């Protein structure tokens, strides 16, 4: 309970201009370019629970199913012709090969009749075993460059993942932290999509040199909507 007004002006997606195109930042953590019929999703970290279990930490084995279910939801809504999975699609090297068959079938079902690109990530540098789709280190389309790790000094139009950006605001003595799209107009870093993925504050040193702080906006993913927060408001 609280004495604040409900956030009734929340919207589930915000459209921003990026790299000369209109991009939809969806509350669920995906980016969609309508003109290109292209959906971007990053850091799925499929089979993360299993990867930990292999090392003695028996995390719940439900993360892959949950991630795939949410992925199915956004794919059903946008029905994209092209999907780019922006790296770290699997949490470790054995992830794709050891993935239980039902998950593999679900994933293959989502991929069917779409151009699907697996971008290499640091967790999964090799193409995923036993799955269709194209594999690439990076892809350039219409002035946009899609790669896993952002490259300092890259030309405008870079869309990357890897860092799991999160943002934090402090209001009325309370701190609220959420995953976010981080964008300064020249570069956009995607939130991590996977169910067991954490976040790293966009003000962390790992983001140093990537954004023009004056123009940075964090599009924070709330439970009900997506919220554009100016860089100066972040903590």
């Amino acid at each position, binding site marked *: 309970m609280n004495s*604040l007004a409900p956030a009734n002006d929340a919207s589930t997606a915000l459209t921003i201009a990026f790299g000369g195109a209109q991009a939809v930042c969806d509350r669920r953590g995906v980016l969609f370019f309508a003109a290109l019929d292209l959906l971007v999703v990053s850091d799925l970290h499929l089979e993360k629970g299993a990867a930990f279990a292999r090392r003695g930490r028996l995390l*719940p084995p439900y993360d892959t199913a949950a991630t795939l279910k949410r992925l199915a939801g956004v794919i059903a809504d946008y029905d994209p012709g092209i999907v780019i999975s922006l790296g770290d699609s699997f949490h470790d090297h054995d992830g794709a090969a050891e993935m239980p068959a039902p998950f593999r079938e679900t994933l293959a079902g989502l991929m069917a009749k779409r151009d699907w690109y697996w971008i290499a990530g640091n967790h999964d540098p090799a193409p995923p075993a036993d799955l269709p789709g194209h594999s690439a280190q990076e892809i350039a389309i219409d002035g946009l460059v899609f790669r896993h790790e952002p490259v300092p000094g890259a030309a405008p139009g870079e869309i990357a993942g890897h860092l799991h950006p999160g943002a934090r605001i402090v209001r009325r003595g309370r701190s609220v932290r959420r995953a976010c799209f981080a964008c300064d107009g020249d570069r956009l870093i995607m939130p991590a999509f996977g169910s067991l993925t954490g976040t790293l504050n966009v003000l962390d*040193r790992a983001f140093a040199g990537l954004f023009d702080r004056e123009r940075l906006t964090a599009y924070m993913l709330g439970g009900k909507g997506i919220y554009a927060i100016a860089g100066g408001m972040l903590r």
Partner: protein
Amino acid sequence: MEHRTPPISGFAAPDLPAPFGEWFATRGWQPRAHQLDLLARTRAGRSALLIAPTGAGKTLAGFLPALTDLAGRPKAKPGEARRGVHTLYISPLKALAVDIQRNLAMPVAEMSLPITIETRTGDTPSHKRQRQKHAPPDILLTTPEQLALLIASPDADRFFSDLRFVVLDELHSLVISKRGHLLSLGLARLRALRPALQAIGLSATVAEPEALRRWLVPQDPPGAMADIVTVAGGAKPDISILETDDRVPWSGHSARYAIPKVYEAIRAHRTTLLFVNTRSQAELLFRELWRINDDNLPIALHHGSLDVGQRRKVEKAMETNSLRAIVATSTLDLGIDWGDVDLVVHVGAPKGASRLAQRIGRSNHRMDEPSRAILVPANRFEVMECRAALEANYLGAQDTPPLVEGALDVLAQHVLGAACAAPFDADRLHAEIVSAAPYAALDRPTFDRIVDFVATGGYALKSYERYARIRRTKEGLWRVSNPRVAQQYRLNVGTIVEAPMLNIRMTRRGRGGAARGGPVLGKVEEYFLETLSPGDTFLFSGRVLRFEGIRENECYVSTGTGEDAMVPSYAGGKFPLSTYLAGEVRAMLADPKRWKTLPSQVSEWLALQRDKSVLPRREDLLVETFPRGNRHYMVLYPFEGRLAHQTLGMLLTRRLERAGTHPLGFVASDYAIAVWSLNDMSAMLRDGSLGLAALLDEDMLGDDLEAWIADSWLLKRTFRNCALISGLVEKRHPGQEKSGRQVTVSADLIYDVLRAHEPDHILLRATWADAALGLLDVRRLGEMLSRVRGRIVHKSLDRISPLAVPIMLEIGKEAVAGDANEALLGEASRLSGEELMQEAMDG
């Protein structure tokens, strides 16, 4: 003067071996009756509980059986195998083990006894630990965590081959926590190794000594009890409530009004121990005392967040009597005998009668002289609570909480430890575990689920069989699958989970994250530091600090100035008011004859309440409704403690929401709850569209509780602790220490995943049980709802009542909770939009 408890018949007073008799005689001492009584009982092969006030020679009593047995032991022959540990002493504090070593060393040296005594704690260097494994001392002084490590080691059987006694100090404090559960399982293990083992428990006075007596012996048959030796209390303490002509505040916990009087009391005594309930109160009191410390009296501060080095310095100064006063939290509660304290001041109400008695026991360790104590209520309700505590102390009433069932996360840790020591048979391990009192009621299916959890995570989806941590051998024994599992166990042993903390490091102003560090002052909870912006000031370690920034797991600060420094607030450390004191406060409220013992400003306040509203009888629940501003308030006075009230507040607002009153918020204190709504609740109660009996029916603890709690941060925090203790997530990995933040994030995520996919998982069950007893205090809330059935007194008023003033002042101090986060995001995005528009218009 010697206080004697007559030996209980059947046990003749034993003869002390010669060196002991002479040792007592040369000092002009006589062994005390309870020391001989305990010795006789242990010689008869019994385990025993000794309940005695401080200063009664409790430590010597506890060790006399071991010392006399060791003194009479024949010398080891050359070539004979090394002897194992003879006596294990376990205390909740490392410092206590060190203290005991010093106190025991003296008589042992003076009697030239061939007895070796050593400590083993987290601070013991690894070469010494190694040496102890090969050449164990006769008496080993250690902690519950170290015991867990020792029994999980493959050579435990050899190490404990000669074990005769376990001495458990401060047992009353150990048994109420998960550390106690871990210790009870360790004790069961030791008994399985050495069935003749005898346990000796040392405890302060408690409400139910039978529970402790059961705790000391195997529950086979169920309900078996150790012997008990009780030493009657010494002189009654001389307790008073601070008298003042100043106005006692309506609410708050700072007791600022009383500081000059407290300072006078310090000046009039040799050494004063000042107790407070929370670390923030300690910081505030310390600062306020120094503000008026014109005589420059040596006044020190001691609480758990301060840097260890600084704490040790303060402890040293205490020992040498070079301090005049020390401000302390519960870190000094336990029986460490430091210096010559002749006054205890309790600032803020003590919250429990037993707690007060234990704290007063810290003063004046000669039990025949009365201890002196002054209670300083911080607000008007606390005046009544202090009065009730004082009377309870006079009557010797005890209100230590009842013991709870053993926690399942602790059990999981223990099961893995058992496998690390040697492959175990599930039937035998279960039998061993139910012999420990906290786990006596553990049913076999639950135990099997815990074993399954330890092996593969206990998930309905059996996808981790190939990654199992423990596996069944051909012979049906469970063994660890690889050495790494044992290594991970050792690094994660223990039940103490701290909130994520950051080091507080000094730097120069304005250097922020780029600064090089100066000295570390201590640690502060991350969630407090996260709410600060550079330039904000806060009070820590007795000084004003300016927040410069956070870098990795350190918070950089510089010397700050200013009067309006914030005080870090900590979620922990706030004890709820005990049930006993709550009942006494309600009784006092109901009986004007008792008001004459209260200061006039308090009795006049109560008289006003009688005139303007109504005073509830002891067993009644008063509910007042009144308008104020454009809001309608409902104030309830259950006096059941802050935790139960918070839970009630959450549930009540849900129900009011459904009833259509449009509740906007609530606030809870130890004494009362206030809920405010848009709609007129007085009118709704009048026309019957709202009914108090239905609103406060016990069924609110069913579905409403389930629905609310599942999403609550309270449960997430509890889950995090269970996940760490049970070994689902690791506290530490070999070679790398995880920062608290990473653990928090992943534990929260795991919780969400688990709740969505396997709500019946054993760890969620453990979490729920923990939260119900802990942060939610559901048991107490349930008892209250059942007590007030048919006894709800409603008073509709046209304005605020006198009794409602304190709780109404709390409104606005409390942070918003729950769904408010989403609203804050919306607000922030609107605001940043406005700011951008402003920028555009300025340009």
